[in-house]
């Protein structure tokens, strides 16, 4: 609260600053034109109320941000012109107040025994100045920037103290103006030349305000180094311990968010968000809630011969070399995104994210050794699906296989080998394959793609945070990891080329595509697991450190 006396002082000193320039002649002339101290008090009181109201309003109501400064000047200036006109042409004023009952109403509001004349005008005069009052006081700025956001009550108290200081000086000016008038008895005559002259002055000042000229005058003074009490006030602020901490910059990019998006917090109440990877705080809701896109457990399969879907349909294909080849066509995956299956005793999650074209098969064994099943959380990061595991309710990003929240934050799921083939390829190579049945237990039209031509067009449902323009955003890449290095290769170009030999971080890798099937081997001849993903989605994760191999450029 050490700031309070300083706020009061700053209010007093404000009268010296150019920012307060439009107020002075209006207050001076406006009160000199009225008879009775009551009207001077009224002008200042309504000024104070108006200043506080507009300060808080502009601070708090973001809708008002859209109102250009000019508009406030015109509103205030017009009111001042109007008040000037009522003084310059008293007959007009009387007609207006009689016709509208304005005087009577405000007279009763302020004091029922008050003289019924001249109450509305001072009130209006004071109020008119609120919209254009902008203080240059650094103390006032400190109250707004540092105190109000942390405590409204303390901030408001300081704002009040500041306004009291400001009003006290303004009141002296107003009373001073009146005492001059009182000495000239004849000047009180409402139809007198003096009052008319003051009215004319107000009209002139009002016009200067409305046209913005008054701001030019202020700027002119400021440019010439007439800054009022700014230097003095800052000196005091430096010397005195105000007990106010320098406010931290407000992040407006969400980059430092520490709060999960509400939909995730609500649907995963058990998660400890403190320990979560901050990446999760950028998640957006894709539309369907948790499990709104139903993952398949214990899927049913039918013989390939029974399947009527066209040769061009792409599919994730699992071939352990022992059991029948299993085929998970995209037209079914696109509705379910995850199939929890077990192949040759290994629990796997066959996953496909339609918005980023990522096809990945994970082993669904958690780092603690327990198998889990995965579901679709409904959240997306850069269009990529966030999965959740049903055993621990942890959240996992599909494109990286990394846990972003929950017990296993930072760990990654193991990749399981698979092929991306068309049904045509499968019919040729594996006529005995078994295909994920359309009889999933869910009523979905597997002939229809709910995302339309998303794969082919260049639009996004959720624009990614960055776009790497080296390749078309939705070009499908084959991706794998050599050592620690993440690598991507344009898939169709690789398929076309048939093979690619390269070095990544000094390690040789060899890629070969035969009948549409990819084999990636390291220098020791070991087969590396891989997955597929649209370029933009791989690039948002790996733009900086990832390596791109292109058969076209070697």
């Amino acid at each position: 609260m050490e700031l309070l006396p300083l706020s009061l002082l700053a209010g007093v000193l404000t009268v010296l600053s150019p920012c307060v320039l439009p107020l002075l002649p209006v207050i001076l002339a406006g009160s000199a034109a009225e008879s009775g101290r009551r009207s001077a008090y009224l002008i200042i009181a309504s000024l104070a109320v108006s200043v506080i109201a507009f300060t808080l309003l502009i601070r708090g109501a973001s809708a008002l941000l859209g109102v250009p400064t000019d508009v406030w000047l015109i509103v205030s200036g017009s009111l001042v012109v109007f008040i000037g006109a009522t003084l310059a042409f008293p007959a007009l004023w009387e007609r207006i107040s009689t016709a509208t009952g304005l005087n009577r109403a405000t007279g009763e509001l302020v004091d029922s025994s008050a003289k019924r004349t001249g109450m509305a005008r001072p009130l209006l005069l004071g109020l008119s100045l609120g919209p254009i009052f902008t203080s240059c006081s650094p103390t006032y700025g400190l109250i707004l920037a540092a105190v109000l956001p942390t405590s409204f009550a303390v901030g408001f108290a300081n704002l009040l103290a500041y306004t009291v200081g400001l009003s006290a000086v303004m009141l002296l000016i107003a009373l001073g103006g009146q005492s001059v008038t009182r000495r000239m008895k004849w000047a009180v005559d409402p139809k007198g030349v003096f009052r008319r002259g003051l009215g004319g002055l107000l009209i002139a000042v009002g016009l200067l305000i409305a046209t913005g000229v008054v701001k030019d005058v202020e700027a002119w003074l400021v440019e010439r180094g007439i800054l009022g009490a700014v230097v003095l006030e800052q000196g005091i602020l430096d010397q005195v311990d105000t007990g106010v901490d320098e406010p931290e910059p407000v992040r407006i990019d969400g980059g430092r968010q520490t709060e999960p998006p509400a939909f995730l917090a609500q649907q995963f109440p058990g998660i400890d968000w403190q320990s979560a990877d901050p990446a999760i705080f950028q998640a957006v809701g894709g539309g369907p809630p948790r499990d709104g896109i139903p993952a398949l457990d214990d899927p049913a399969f039918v013989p390939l011969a029974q399947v009527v879907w066209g040769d061009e349909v792409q599919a994730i294909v699992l071939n352990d070399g022992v059991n029948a080849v299993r085929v998970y066509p995209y037209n079914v995956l696109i509705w379910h995104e995850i199939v929890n299956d077990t192949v040759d005793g290994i629990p796997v999650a066959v996953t496909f994210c339609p918005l980023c074209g990522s096809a990945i098969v994970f082993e669904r064994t958690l780092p603690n050794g327990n198998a889990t099943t995965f579901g679709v959380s409904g959240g997306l990061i850069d269009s990529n699906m966030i999965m959740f595991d049903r055993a621990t309710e942890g959240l996992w990003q599909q494109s990286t296989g990394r846990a972003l929240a929950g017990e296993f934050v930072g760990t990654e799921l193991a990749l399981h080998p698979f092929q991306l083939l068309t049904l045509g390829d499968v019919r040729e190579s594996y006529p005995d394959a078994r295909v994920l049945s359309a009889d999933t237990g869910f009523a979905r039209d597997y002939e229809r793609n709910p995302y339309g031509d998303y794969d082919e067009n260049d639009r996004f449902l959720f624009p990614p945070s960055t776009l790497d323009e080296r390749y078309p955003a939705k070009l499908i890449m084959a991706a794998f990891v050599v050592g620690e290095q993440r690598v991507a290769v344009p898939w169709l170009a690789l398929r076309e080329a048939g093979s690619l030999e390269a070095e990544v971080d000094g390690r040789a890798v060899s890629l070969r595509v035969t009948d549409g099937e990819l084999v990636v081997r390291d220098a020791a001849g070991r087969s590396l697991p891989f997955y597929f993903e649209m370029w933009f989605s791989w690039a948002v994760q790996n733009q900086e450190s990832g390596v791109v191999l292109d058969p076209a450029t070697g």
Partner: protein
Amino acid sequence: MRKLVIGIVVVIVAAVVAIAVIPRLTAPSSPSSASAETAGFSERYQPYSEQALAEAGPDDTVVLFFSAVWCSTCKVLRDDIAANQQSIPNDVRILLVDFDDSTELKQQYGVVYQHTLVQVDRAGQGIARWELSRTLDDVLGTIVVV
């Protein structure tokens, strides 16, 4: 006596009009604020324009300085930046925005005070916002690490 008062009023009105007109005459080519200090500008500190923003390098830090011409605390900072431009790091650009004339930018970044600094990326995406920096050092010291 009456004539005297009328005279005084006329003089006051004339004075107000004169004050209003003189700056326009003395600085006819500077209707907008920022231009009053054109002398102090360089590549690293210049008035805001979409082009000036786009010219920033990919790793540059851009700070928009919303400043009103009539704002005296802003004037203190404007002078300090202009006087110390050589100490603006190579990867920092400060772009001066006229507070009274930039409703759209104010809306975009939520600027409500005449003396506000907004850190943006070169695509104009807002990163951080703060108010009332007094010196160039203050500004540079407040820039957040992205």
